């Protein structure tokens, strides 16, 4: 296996990471724009998050006096794990560079590693808000994780494999599997988990300025300058990646099955279009949602777990 020296595979890797990186930030801007327009506001330009990150990269880095090495490490790990996950996931092509190790469990836990470190960094700051945010984020994470595991199981049933590219290829070969109850239940559960994990309404309000209600924002309150830029980038990439996973499991058409330039170009455009459409739809729905009371979140995530479980059961039964 000398794929590592294959220029095509390296190119694919770079392409996927760049598309997820820049695309993630644009995605944030797009979602804010959609929300603004529905609320009757003009809203910031779609490219604003890119500019924000560029601005933050140039600003001074302030770190809490008593924070340990975890605090500066967390943003780096967050971006690194998402980058590796982007190399494993069949987003633009069904043959990602790290296809061999691209087990869904690995992808999911790589992403969790990043968010867990950010939660630890929240505790590391020693402030009340950091601890509060971390405690809430980990509570939600702990509730979301079983749902996510069972979701992966439900996705693996049809293709007898938890290898992500294999699942996507099997889906492309037999699209009927998408409308099987197993897949539909699993996708519904996955959607709820993605919303919870990326801190969107009704779980967390990404636009709030009220410190006491924050979850994600409270954890990263002490980050500034380049550190904050990395956290913003990492979170945006993760959202883009998760939505990319969602669309490729539900509408896999257009994913390049070779590494030719033409196929990759089409794959990139199709992926961006699909993710943009799903993100806009999410943002549209968000406008009409309010944030759930913190103690109601277990009910929502338990719902996701039940959906995933139904997915597994129906997958096994309809075999």
């Amino acid at each position, binding site marked *: 296996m000398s794929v590592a020296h294959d220029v095509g595979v390296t190119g694919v890797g770079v392409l996927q990471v760049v598309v997820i990186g820049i695309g993630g930030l644009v995605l944030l801007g797009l979602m804010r724009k959609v*929300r603004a327009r529905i609320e*009757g506001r003009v809203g910031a330009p779609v490219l604003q998050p890119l500019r924000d990150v560029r601005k933050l990269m140039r600003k001074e880095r302030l770190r809490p006096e008593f924070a340990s090495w975890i605090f500066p490490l967390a943003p780096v790990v967050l971006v690194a794990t998402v980058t590796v996950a982007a190399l494993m996931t069949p987003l633009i092509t069904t043959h990602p560079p790290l296809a061999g190790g691209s087990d869904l469990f690995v992808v999911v836990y790589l992403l969790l590693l990043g968010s867990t470190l950010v939660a630890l960094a929240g505790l590391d700051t020693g402030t009340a808000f950091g601890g509060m945010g971390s405690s809430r984020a980990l509570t939600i994470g702990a509730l979301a994780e079983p749902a996510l595991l069972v979701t992966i199981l439900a996705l693996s049933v049809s293709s007898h494999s938890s290898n992500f590219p294999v699942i996507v290829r099997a889906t492309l070969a037999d699209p009927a599997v998408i409308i099987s109850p197993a897949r539909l239940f699993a996708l519904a559960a996955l959607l709820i988990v993605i919303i919870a994990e990326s801190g969107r309404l009704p779980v967390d309000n990404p636009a709030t*300025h009220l410190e*006491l209600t924050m979850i994600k924002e409270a954890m990263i309150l002490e980050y500034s300058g380049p550190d904050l830029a990395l956290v913003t980038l990492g979170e945006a990439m993760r959202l883009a990646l998760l939505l990319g996973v969602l669309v490729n499991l539900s509408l896999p058409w257009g994913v390049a099955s070779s590494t030719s330039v033409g196929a990759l170009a089409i794959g990139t455009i199709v992926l961006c279009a699909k993710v943009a459409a799903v993100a806009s739809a999410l943002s549209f729905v968000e406008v009409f*949602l309010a*944030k*759930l*009371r913190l*103690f109601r979140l277990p009910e929502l995530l338990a719902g996701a777990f039940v959906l995933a479980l139904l997915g597994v059961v129906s997958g096994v039964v309809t075999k």
Partner: protein
Amino acid sequence: MNAAIELGELLESSGSLRRSVQVSSDELVEFAALMLERRYRLALVCAVDTGIDIRVNYLFVTGPPDRRIELVVTTARDNAAVPSLARLSFAAGRFEREMRDLFGIEPVGHPAPHRLVLHQHWPEGWHPLRYDAPASVPMAEDSASYPFVEVQGAGVYEIPIGPVHAGIIEPGHFRFSVVGETILKMKARLWFVHKGIERLFEGRDYQFGVELAEKISGDSAVGHSLAFCRAAEEALGVALSPRAEELRTVLLELERLYNHVADVGALCNDVGFGLAQAKALTLRERLLRLNREVTGHRLLRGGIAVGGAKVITLPSAEVLDAIGKEFDALVALARGQGTVMDRFKGTGVLQLVDVEEMGVLGVAARASGSSYDARRAHPVGATLAGFTPALSTEGDVQARFNVRVEEVAASLSILRDYCSSSGDLSVSTVLGTIASNVSGSGIVEGWRGAIVHRVEIDKGVLTRVKVVDPSFFNWPALAISLADTIVPDFPLVNKSFNLSYAGNDL
């Protein structure tokens, strides 16, 4: 027992009443207890340093009919002291702490005579409202830190927040003692924006007191300036034409309107329902522009003067109907969102018994079933006689939301009545000879609750102005309503009270 007989006769009499009774220090507690027993509320306590001695005026009010009885106690300037009423009335205890800071009057028998207004870096023995107090003093180090009660126990931790916040709001420091997410105790430290506004009134011509009163709390320009004018007019013995009161009522209800609309949107925003907030802000902007058409100022400044009121134009019935329609759509949007109502319901419950104990006022009180409304209790002229305030009994965020919604409808209906009748757009009263050493009180139901001013005028010059914003009564109630509330619900409960820092800190 001269005063006892006088007071007894006053209490037995019927109809409206405004009277001041001199009592001795020994009689004060007994008489105050008698007044409170008769369902009078302590609306204001105002100390006055005459230079010879210190006079403390306790204003008790009830209504309808509009009855105001003032108990007046005199004490020496050196070692000034009055018997404490803190065990009779919670609010009295806070007024006494305020007087202790600003006048150096010791409340004898007060259970917790801590500093209230002046933070610890102000020097001991400096009482800024004494007439001979130096205008500026060197600031000391924050010597004794604020006596926060520390809650102890397994898993209890503290969350400090403010006085500088992430949003653009006024400064206040809140300290939460929390187990998990449940609030055990919340203590607010305020008076970060104490600016000595009562002292700023002193020495001004009474006509120029209005512009200062408008700035006590920016969102209550009409409420405070009207309370000031009513107090000054009572002191000067001015009777206003019904038309002047009509115009004032219009301005007061316009103020209620734009603030309640903003609150309805802000409550939705605090549970993440930004759509309703966006619509509310649009409507609020429309109302602010209407305000500018009516008075020339977006926050309704300049419409009220001692002895009169003036507007440029009055809103037409069509404009009011359009606003009403838009507001109904906004409320329907909020009420149609299940999660929003779920967040409101049962959150931050304030019991009626606490309302009565603490003297809570306004929207917060009416949402818990207390029907006190200065528009009904202390009407001026024929305006709003027989007005029925909106009422709810649940005492939660939803009840406060609902009371606001109903008050908007009521304000619109009052405005429709008063704006349809034609009449002068500017009314002023010729003021006769200006007496020396006169005093008066003014009570206005501002959008937050009853605002009370007490004014003393000597030959046209203000010698003492005491201001009480309803926030002064309501801040402690916020802490009480948080029992068993979870931390992430605090901003919502806080918003449902929407108290003024500027009006409280003065």
